[in-house]
């Protein structure tokens, strides 16, 4: 094999010897490592080498009109309505009005014009909520309703809409069910055997007779995020992550059926960083992610979005900040929930995340939560800018508040 594993040519990538891959990709990927400043006469410790990935195989793939950052790079709209939550109850009509106002402000066009800027009537549109923390901090149904009403009102058939997430159980637990959304597709990339007991040894709940995960065929072996990170080999990991080698395939739903994606994360933190637009897709579109957290973490949020399957389809991001969580994330943590009463819209997920990161830092300071503003927690956004996926420099981001 003469080249690093690449997008669209992954069939036999696993036959590549690891040492060959490292040799081939070391030079090209060196620029991905967080840059070390040159100040100081005494040299600091060399940063640990970052795990290799196949980003080089996709980052220069030919772009199309809809490629990130979309038609409005660096433009973020924040819509606030102080009356959207009253006594803990969200006003659905108010949310719809916020979304409509935000979209019009973002694009400078009416609902139909916005639709025509971003979508076509024959598109199959995937809406990606964040279902983690069902009911507490998961994407609110009122926001998803507003998006669906906009799409259908502009002529998109209801059957051309799919609400999707990686995990079936989370999607259902958060209320994204066929009953709640009649006529709209509800699809997960994978199942987990929630009742699996590692001590019983009974794997029939998630493994087929051939030993492969029951969800294996829902992922596309041709479109794979590869990373030189080892995965745990225990049964619990395989149950949750479908694969346990160095492959993280994209869901076939994304590679073969959806033609556009609307991303609807929630306004929350993960440690010193945020778990919003880029992370909702970065860790939601592929399998076998558990192994990636420690060695790559935020870089996954950037590199997965660089794959054409995401880069060319992700047309709108709506961060649901009706309710926010300023600490204790990414899981639900009731002690840090607050009514933020704001929706954020952007075609550029990096400008959006950069804006929301700074807002969340400000909130954390206000609430006397310890804040570490080290550049490492936003480096992945600058990395996205270097890859041409969006704008991360606050000075070049236009935030419009309405």
């Amino acid at each position, binding site marked *: 094999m003469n080249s690093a594993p690449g997008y669209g040519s992954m069939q036999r990538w696993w036959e590549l010897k690891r040492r060959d891959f490292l040799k081939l990709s070391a030079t090209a990927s060196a620029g991905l490592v967080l840059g070390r400043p040159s100040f*100081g006469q005494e040299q*600091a410790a060399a940063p640990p080498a970052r795990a290799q990935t196949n980003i080089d195989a996709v980052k220069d793939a030919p772009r199309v009109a809809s490629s990130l950052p979309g038609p409005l790079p660096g433009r973020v709209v924040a819509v606030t309505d102080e009356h959207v939550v009253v006594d803990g109850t969200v006003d659905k009509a108010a949310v719809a009005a916020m979304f409509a106002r935000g979209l019009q402000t973002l694009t400078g066009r009416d609902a139909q014009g916005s639709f025509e800027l971003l979508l076509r009537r024959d598109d199959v549109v995937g809406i990606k909520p964040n279902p983690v923390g069902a009911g507490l901090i998961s994407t609110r149904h009122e926001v998803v309703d507003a998006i669906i009403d906009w799409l259908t009102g502009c002529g998109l058939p209801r059957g051309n809409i799919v609400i999707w997430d990686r995990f079936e159980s989370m999607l259902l637990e958060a209320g994204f069910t066929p009953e709640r959304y009649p006529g709209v597709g509800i699809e997960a990339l994978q199942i987990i055997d929630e009742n699996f007991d590692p001590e019983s040894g009974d794997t029939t709940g998630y493994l087929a007779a051939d030993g492969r995960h029951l969800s294996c065929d829902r992922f596309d072996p041709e479109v794979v995020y590869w990373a030189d990170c080892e995965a745990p080999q225990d049964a619990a990991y395989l149950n949750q992550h479908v694969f346990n080698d160095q492959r993280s395939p994209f869901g076939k739903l994304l590679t073969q059926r959806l033609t556009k994606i609307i991303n609807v994360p929630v306004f929350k933190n993960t440690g010193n960083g945020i778990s919003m637009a880029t992370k909702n897709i970065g860790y939601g579109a592929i399998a076998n992610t558990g192994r990636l957290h420690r060695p790559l973490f935020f870089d996954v949020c950037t590199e997965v979005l660089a794959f054409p399957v995401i880069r060319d389809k992700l047309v709108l991001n709506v961060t649901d900040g009706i309710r926010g969580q300023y600490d204790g994330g990414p899981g639900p943590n009731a*002690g840090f*929930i607050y009514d933020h009463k704001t929706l954020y819209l952007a075609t550029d997920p990096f400008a959006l995340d950069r804006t929301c990161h700074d807002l969340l830092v400000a909130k954390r300071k206000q*609430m*006397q939560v*310890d804040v*570490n503003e080290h550049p490492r927690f936003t480096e992945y956004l600058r990395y996205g800018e270097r890859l041409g996926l969006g704008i991360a420099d606050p000075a070049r981001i236009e935030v419009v508040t309405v």
Partner: protein
Amino acid sequence: MKAATAGWLLLAAVWGGAARGAPADRAGEMPPIAAQTSAAVGDVLAQDGDLYFAPNGLYGYINGGAELYLEFGFVGLDVKHYRVEIAGKVHDLAVESYRMTDPAAALGIYLARKGRETPTAELAARHTVNSYQLLAVQGTLFLQVNNFGGDSACLPAMTTLAASHLASEPPVPPLGIWDLLPAAGRLPGSEFLLRGRFALQPIYTFGEGDVLLLEETGALAAGARYSGGPGGDVTRIAVVYGAAQDARRALANLRAQRDPYLEVVRADLQRLVLRDYAGKYSVICLVDWGLEITLSLAAAP
């Protein structure tokens, strides 16, 4: 503590479907929580189906946050679910009792999790409460009462449940480690404890891994923010090592393994002055009990 009398009724304690992980064998792993909620609040109709998590099962319950508990010293987690009726409306509450290895571990978790404290006069133990959650600490017990519905009508029930779970927990004297730091200028509520890299993460980035050798040496560190005048607030940390040589090794390790964004301004065997990404200065001094650290100084000392 006033009696739990606010007209609410505990209908049922547990529903098994709430389990997100298999309870471990609890024999001998968890010191008993002597206070039984049924005695304190009345009509508890059932107590079966409680969950228990040993250290190796904690990830199954609080995925993404378990590291901090394990780093401070975690013994076991007991989870009880309650169904509460208030004025005809049913609410689901959960009490999570984290048994920690020692009072410093319990306090360390509490300080890391509390945010801005908003206590009520109804609970004697140190705590903070809002309509979604109550956090409390006493002795080696860190307690969390969840009310995912967020209805403020549940506040009396949450407080009562917390009090009953804490009732048998012996109070402990205040931790003396903050006495190593100046009292003047300390910002109330800004105190924190450290036992490793995860607790340090939200405070400051010195470098990768256990760069201060907190985990390797079993050191305990305490810190707080201080009003810093026009240059902004500063953070002071006292790291207490068991042996002087550990402190010396930690200082040398920090100098060698420091974050790439940290520039050495001055250094000798007793003191290290660093300049960080924001142009702020840090001073790390070797003292007789360990390392005395000051972060975020506006000017080089």
